């Protein structure tokens, strides 16, 4: 059995300062972290590997300047990883990236389960999982808390209407994991050293493919483009809510509904 995990990275927001008035973003500390939800997908795959002894192959979510994300995955126990080289769609352009990933999956010889994070921390896009499911013609289970495989089916825990339910679909399938659902294990020290040194078997587990070998030039055409950037109004502290307690409650409820995702 082969599980394909799609991992991305994101700039650590704690290293970013936004100055709305100046209309600029300052990166104080440029440190990249694995997409939090993708970490859960990787852990889910590694747990399945521990339980069933399958192969875990890692692909990158987007075209990245280096293969660090893949090395991190190999250090934690993934069997193989493929770095995609070349120019192509930008970070936000999931639609543009989908055919590249589908082609990569095909070149790998397919898979039984595709796991990735439910949503990206920075761009808030959750479309990768479902788009891949559509392109591959597989069932999709989104925002799962847990994944299990038994016989030819995948079972997952989802939250529906406030309660937790178990759902099932036939393999092959695409499952996306919620951020915070599983804690990603620490790397194995020896694997870590060897994969970053580029020595031993593990170094051979990291492959590099050119995107132009996977898809035709015109397919690499981006679907989305950036039209600008906007900044939130400066934080206004100390806004006093007037009125009766009931009126205050309404105002607070309104503010909360805007900020808390239902």
């Amino acid at each position, binding site marked *: 059995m082969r599980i394909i995990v799609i991992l991305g990275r994101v700039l650590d927001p704690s290293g970013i300062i936004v100055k709305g008035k100046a209309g600029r973003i300052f990166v104080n500390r440029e440190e990249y972290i694995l997409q939090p939800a993708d970490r859960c997908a990787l852990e889910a795959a590694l747990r399945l590997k521990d339980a069933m002894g399958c192969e875990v192959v890692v692909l990158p979510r987007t075209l990245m300047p280096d293969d660090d994300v893949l090395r991190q995955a190999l250090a934690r126990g993934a069997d193989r990883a493929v770095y995609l080289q070349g120019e192509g769609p930008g970070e936000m352009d999931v639609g543009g990236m989908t055919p590249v990933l589908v082609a990569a999956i095909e070149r790998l010889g397919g898979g039984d389960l595709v796991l990735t994070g439910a949503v990206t921390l920075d761009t808030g896009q959750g479309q990768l999982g479902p788009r891949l499911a559509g392109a591959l013609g597989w069932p999709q289970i989104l925002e799962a808390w847990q994944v299990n495989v038994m016989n030819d089916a995948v079972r997952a825990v989802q939250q529906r209407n406030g309660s937790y339910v178990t759902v099932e679909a036939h393999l092959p399938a695409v499952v996306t994991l919620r951020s915070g659902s599983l804690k990603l294990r620490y*790397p194995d020290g020896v694997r870590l050293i060897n994969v970053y040194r580029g020595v031993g078997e593990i170094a051979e587990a990291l492959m590099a493919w050119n995107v132009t070998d996977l898809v035709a030039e015109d397919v690499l055409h981006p679907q989305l483009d950036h039209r600008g950037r906007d900044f939130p109004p400066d934080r206004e502290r100390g806004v006093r809510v007037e009125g009766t307690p009931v009126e205050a409650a309404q105002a607070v409820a309104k503010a909360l509904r805007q900020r808390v995702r239902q």
Partner: protein
Amino acid sequence: MDFTLSPEHRALRRMIREFAENEVRPIAMEIDREHRVPIEVMRALGKTGLLGVCFPQEYGGMGAGEMGYCLLMEELNQASTSVATNVGAHIGIGAMAIYLDGNEEQKRKYLTPLARGEKFAAFGLTEPGAGSDAAAIRTRAVREGDSWILDGGKVFITNGGYADIITVLAVTDPALGARGGITAFIVETDWEGFKVAREEDKMGIRGTSTAELVFEGVRVPHENVLGKVGEGFVTFMKSLDMGRLTLGAACIGGTQMALEQAVRWARTRKQFGVELAHKQTIQWMIADIATELEALRSLVYRAAWLVDTGQPFTQLAAMCKLYGSDVASRAINMVVQIHGGLGISRDFPVECGFRDARIAEIYEGTNEVQRIVIASNIFREHGIRIRP
């Protein structure tokens, strides 16, 4: 001169930092309050392979060298000096002695499980009458057929209360003293005759086991002699040399922690209408700590590079320990001062850091001994042999 860390060391540092933040920092104050060794953290470290960070991969280690070990101590100490001390005693003197002077069988049998974190190590040297004067130990090992019978006691042994394997120094020929009369033995703590007599109740590093050990007729097989009979003193000197350097690395972590606490407090605390950060006295204190921290960092990393490139490092290692412990003490003292009255409040981590830092100037060879070592080396280069 390329000062950048290699990719594997950068990745290693990131891994250790994540571990320290998620597993060590949350329990740091608790283990101090409860006076307990966080054995679950030691086991978790073992699982990642970090307890063998500097040992070769063929013996179950990670093969990250002395630099890797320094990074481990630096990052762990930022979160908890107690945890770093447990690790340092396990890797730096306990397992290290076996790595430096063990034969093939000993490395396979003992070093490998230690490197994998399956077993824990300690180093048994100090006795009531033998601290800095290590040659004055009295624990006796007498040959009997194909074994040695060990009788005596040790004090202040870090990890002694839970270690599985202890490298013990004992007198095998009282007449010869340090030169030819002391031997190192690998002792398994589940052997008959070994006992942990008591634990020290300490001012600081209260998350460590500092134990008094008793050996009553402990039978040690001859194949557990570490190195050559009579050359134990050399083994111990070599181990402590390596350990010294990494204690300096630990002090980088302690100083870094102190600096961060100082900055955080100076940003938050307002007196006379402004944050403390706007007061020059505070700025100078912080500038001084930061400068010494960078100097220490350069010193330690260079010493680690010397080790990893097979060059002589003893002088620099002694300097790392001496300077590191002094810098860390100055830093934490300054941080307590910056916090004012709250600096002694047990609710703040600085108070714990203050108590934890004190031992660094004392153990692993007191700073006085370090100065003698440093001066001796200097004068020897100029043709004078200093008498201690």
